[in-house]
């Protein structure tokens, strides 16, 4: 519990910027420089392939694919809690991130923060629910998942945006799109083939991979349960480069926490309550085992039994209801 109390300063609402003497320069949290570094490296990789033909090789392209995925991870974090202290910089950063994934980062507000975090769209399933795919050969589910979840998400977002009072969202959505497609279009005019192969392919790869994460982190979990709805990947290096996105249960339950402290809360709050099979040491190992070595989809397991055993933990009443958490997620996103 002491670890949790120490971190309450970080568990602040997204609209509460720290004072100048407490916080670092420009950004809300010193760890944000890691995210900015990731995006800078990604832009550097894309730029080098477009403008320097010698860079069009397997190593740079492979790095661009990987950093495109990380760019989408940064979108996720940024749309939960803006990286910068200044609102205008946060909005500008949204455009930068949108270009990196060729989709408007603003989409994450309804698609991720409001619907996915609660596995529910007013009674209908999450737009990126694992049930969207149903091939017997599990590898096909992994490959095909973005083909369904992507359009599902954009359909859902269109419906969500069609409701009165969401004009600011639509404006931001438009600006994100204008920047992402405008800059990509300009690059097409500069060098069509280089842009198609060395910019658009990485952009699409990252966007599709972040959709796949929904399948990887929730398939065969119990989304009705309070703690056993997500799969966690707890490798140290993995979480360093992924900005702690492996700690998914605690992120769902406490969306207001800053990503840099998720590992501590995972250890204290999540680990005693989840089925051990939902604490995976390595994502690569999990993918290899689940989608390559295993031809069929694993059978469902009663993972929620673990939290019923652990329900008497001293801080078990510390978690707000899903409605309370939804409101917290909305506040953190600055809505």
């Amino acid at each position, binding site marked *: 519990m002491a670890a949790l109390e120490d971190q309450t300063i970080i568990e602040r609402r997204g609209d509460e910027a720290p004072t100048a003497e407490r916080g670092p320069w420009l950004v809300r949290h010193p760890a944000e420089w890691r995210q900015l570094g990731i995006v800078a490296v990604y832009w550097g990789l894309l730029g080098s392939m477009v403008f320097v033909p*010698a860079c*069009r*090789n*397997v190593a740079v*392209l492979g790095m661009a694919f990987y950093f495109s995925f990380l760019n989408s991870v940064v979108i996720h974090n940024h749309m939960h809690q803006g990286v910068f202290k200044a609102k205008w910089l946060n909005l500008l950063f949204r455009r930068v991130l949108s270009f990196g994934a060729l989709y408007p980062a603003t989409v994450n507000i309804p698609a991720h923060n409001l619907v996915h975090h609660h596995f529910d*769209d*007013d*009674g*209908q399933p999450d737009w990126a629910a694992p049930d969207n*795919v*149903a*091939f017997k050969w599990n590898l*096909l589910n992994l*490959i*095909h998942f973005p*083909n*369904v979840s*992507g*359009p*599902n998400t*954009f*359909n859902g977002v269109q*419906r969500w*945006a*069609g*409701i*009165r*009072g*969401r*004009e600011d969202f*639509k404006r931001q959505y438009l600006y994100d799109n204008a920047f992402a497609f405008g800059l990509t279009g300009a690059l097409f005019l500069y060098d*069509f*083939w280089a842009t*198609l*192969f*060395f910019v*658009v*392919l990485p952009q699409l790869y990252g966007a599709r991979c972040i959709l796949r994460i929904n399948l990887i982190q929730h398939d065969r979990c119990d989304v009705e349960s309070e703690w056993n709805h997500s799969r966690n990947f707890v490798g140290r290096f993995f979480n360093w480069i992924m900005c702690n996105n492996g700690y998914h249960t605690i992120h769902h339950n406490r969306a207001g926490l800053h990503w840099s402290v998720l590992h501590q809360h995972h250890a204290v709050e999540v680990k005693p309550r989840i089925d051990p099979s939902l604490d995976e040491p390595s994502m690569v190992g999990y993918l290899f085992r689940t989608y390559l070595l295993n031809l069929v989809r694993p059978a469902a397991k009663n993972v929620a039994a673990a939290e019923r055993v652990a329900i008497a933990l001293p801080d078990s009443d510390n978690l707000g209801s899903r409605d309370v958490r939804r409101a917290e997620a909305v506040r953190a996103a600055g809505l």
Partner: protein
Amino acid sequence: MLTRELMGYAALWVLWGNTLLVALAAGKQAFALLARANALRAGRVYGRVVGPEPIAEVCVDQIGRQGAGSSPSVVWHDQTYRSRILGGAIEIEGKGVARVAAADAIVWVDPAQVLEAARCPDSATFNQVHQAARKVKGHARTIVAEVPAGAFVSVRGELRGEGESLEIVLAEPAALFAIDPLRFAGEKSRIVLAYFIPGIILGAAICTIVALHEPVFDSLVSKLGALAAFVFFLLVLPAGTAVRDWLREPHERIVRGKWVAPKPAVNASLADNASRSGAVE
């Protein structure tokens, strides 16, 4: 060094891989719908519903919220789909009138009937609902499409007894059809298997042929083919999910919809027409 040719072929491989997955998923679902209809049609009893009450209903719970835009509207969002046999009697030719017990059941009615039930009845209702839909939680309603007295239906079950004790003992899962299930599934599956799947494969093939125009990945024609392939890739995915939704079974069909305020009309007749045309988008 990654050459243009190598990257071009890799990109086409991505296009084809995903197009084939969309086709495979659509085909799989079409066959599943056929198999489902085939399984449900076995062991049915046919007859006409004896009144006065409806024998079954399909319900869609919805939430309505005020729509964006300058003209008043209500946007409907589906929450849950339910269907059940309410209980009643069916007249079976040559056998008499058989009782049917109430039960949760799969009920297939004409999708147009559900859409009709979802329409805005009049401008007074619209105004009332529009006001209620201002709330963040929206305005809840349930669309009910009934299978009325006089309708010709088929029920999954076994006919037992005779005379006044004649009854249909429902099979598991219980199902009542106001439409021919196999015909419904057959028509949908045929469109997917005969038109959608060949159509998207043809689309990918045309893009590929144009993209491979000599000099490959260098000429203007090849460039246009690559651009078309990119656009096709962005379109074939939503087309796949649209087909997936379209293939849903009738008792779980997506309804949603939008009520738009009836426009002021010059006379009662025009007002009535406007109300009808603007009811559901």
